[in-house]
């Protein structure tokens, strides 16, 4: 549905924040949220568990520890701050806790706004904020069952991967 209101109406933001204890389908979450807002601009980010550890070893699973009560409250504070900074309409955050398998979604951030710039920037900033300021801790579980707490997040800026020089384009 189109938003019938004038472009100059008072702005307000709807936050939808939740922890997920079990595997979730990001699109089953996004579709009703998106249909409800039908904003002119929507940016999403989905993060999934890689199949290998930070050290490059095969990974059986990640164990996601959090601080019940504080983690939810902190996600809400971060989302409200990012939403206000960019004056967006709606923010959605889902984050897994517990044991997460490679390929499963671990984090979902979505932002609906009147303009593409605020939607994209708010989505990026909130993702960085929750990676640094929402209490979650990842333990990598190797295929032999050994566990190792992850030291820190992967940096946002990465050197070009070695495969870039041999990049090939397929159309599908």
């Amino acid at each position: 549905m189109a938003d019938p209101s004038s472009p100059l109406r008072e702005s307000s933001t709807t936050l939808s924040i939740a922890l997920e204890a079990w595997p979730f389908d990001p699109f089953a979450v996004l579709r009703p949220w998106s249909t409800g807002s039908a904003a002119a601009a929507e940016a999403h980010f989905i993060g999934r568990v890689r199949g290998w550890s930070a050290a490059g070893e095969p990974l059986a699973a990640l164990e996601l520890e959090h601080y019940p009560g504080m983690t939810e409250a902190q996600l809400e504070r971060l989302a409200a701050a990012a939403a206000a900074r960019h004056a967006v309409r709606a923010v959605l955050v889902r984050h897994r806790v517990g044991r997460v398998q490679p390929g499963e979604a671990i984090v979902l951030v979505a932002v609906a706004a009147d303009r593409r710039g605020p939607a994209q920037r708010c989505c990026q900033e909130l993702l960085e904020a929750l990676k640094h300021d929402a209490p979650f801790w990842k333990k990598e579980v190797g295929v032999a069952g050994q566990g190792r707490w992850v030291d820190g997040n992967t940096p946002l800026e990465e050197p070009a991967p070695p495969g870039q020089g041999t990049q090939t384009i397929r159309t599908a």
Partner: protein
Amino acid sequence: MTTDLAGPPHLQVRLFAGLREQAGWGERHLALHEPATPDAHNGAPPPTAAQLWQRLGLGPWPAGVRVAVNREFAEPGRILAAGDEVAYLPPITGG
């Protein structure tokens, strides 16, 4: 709890992730003042979060650890009050 209200003031202490595993515990109820000292009765100021860490006997302050008091981030120098929930959080790795 009713029994606490009648007794000396307490703190709730929480450890997470690597800190929890190294300590061998994740949650502990402690008196606000160290029981072996007379502080509890002579009006000495309550400890900061960093001072409480020393009392826990878990070694020097670990690099990158952050403090939360009552589920909000706080400075290690934050002075604690009776009933506070104090948490020591290793570097965050979510998202």
